[in-house]
């Protein structure tokens, strides 16, 4: 395969005719090879002919690449930028597929992730906990985080659901949900500071 500079890739992909077809074929082969290797741990999730699926992802990625050539800023090699787009296309679809049968509410409820952020649960162990650091931390989380933040954190940090999939179920997008969670973490951090608590000291006390 010939080595092209970034400008040569851009010129070839923007030019009409055979030169563009040749560049597209080269790029497609490169992306397929990269995805086939990078996604090897997802073969079971893919569920059908993996190579065919990788071809589909690359087709979708090529369309996006062609649509977004003008947004390539030249901060990296053109091919690195193209691989980045192909990986995003593939992972978005594979994550959707892997988590398609999992309900957000069920995940956080069944796994106990939601209840760890609530203090209204009665039980013999709860009385003892109320006096210690764990109960205090749980109460702080209840007071500082919104229901949306608690649910998202529980699903992502404790339930292992990808941010992207949680966002889809909350009718938002990954970027916006990251900001929502970040806002929650900042609130907790400020609260600990106001209470004069150092996170590392808390961890040490927990043993």
């Amino acid at each position, binding site marked *: 395969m010939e080595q092209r500079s970034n400008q040569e890739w851009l010129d070839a992909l923007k030019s009409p005719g055979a030169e563009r077809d040749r560049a597209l074929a080269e790029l497609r082969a490169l992306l397929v*090879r*990269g995805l086939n290797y990078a996604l090897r741990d997802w073969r079971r999730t893919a569920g059908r002919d993996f190579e065919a699926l990788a071809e589909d992802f690359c087709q979708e990625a090529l369309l996006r690449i062609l649509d977004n050539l003008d947004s390539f800023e030249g901060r990296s090699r053109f091919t*690195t930028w193209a691989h980045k787009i192909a990986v*995003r296309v593939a992972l978005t679809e594979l994550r959707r597929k892997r988590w398609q049968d999992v309900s957000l509410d069920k995940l956080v409820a069944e796994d*106990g992730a939601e209840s760890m952020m609530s203090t209204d649960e009665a039980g013999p162990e709860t009385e003892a906990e109320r006096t210690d650091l764990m109960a205090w931390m749980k109460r702080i989380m209840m007071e500082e985080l919104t229901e949306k933040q608690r649910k998202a954190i529980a699903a992502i940090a404790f339930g292992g659901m990808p941010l992207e999939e949680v966002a889809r179920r909350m009718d938002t997008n990954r970027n916006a949900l990251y900001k929502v969670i970040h806002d929650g*973490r900042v609130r907790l951090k400020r609260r600990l500071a106001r209470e004069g608590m150092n*996170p590392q000291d808390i961890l040490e006390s*927990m043993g």
Partner: protein
Amino acid sequence: MFFKLMFSRRARRAMKEMTRLKSMINMVDATAEIELACEEAHRLLDQYADVLLRGEDPGALLPQVKHHLEMCMDCREEFEMLLSALRATTG
């Protein structure tokens, strides 16, 4: 027997909660007032990967991307796959 089972279930649950709280506290401790969100980090991910593959320190050049990758599981997974794809095609 029943009480023993109940106790061990409670003990396991308490252990699980403790582990989760610790991970939460670590996340809070690592939180910065200003962080890149996923799309901003994604925009710089190709540059970050190339710097790393050149044997340089991308965290020194793009510390906010490094921090985002430490905080965001989705983006970290994408970055690792990107590196994997690049290593498979540029070796």
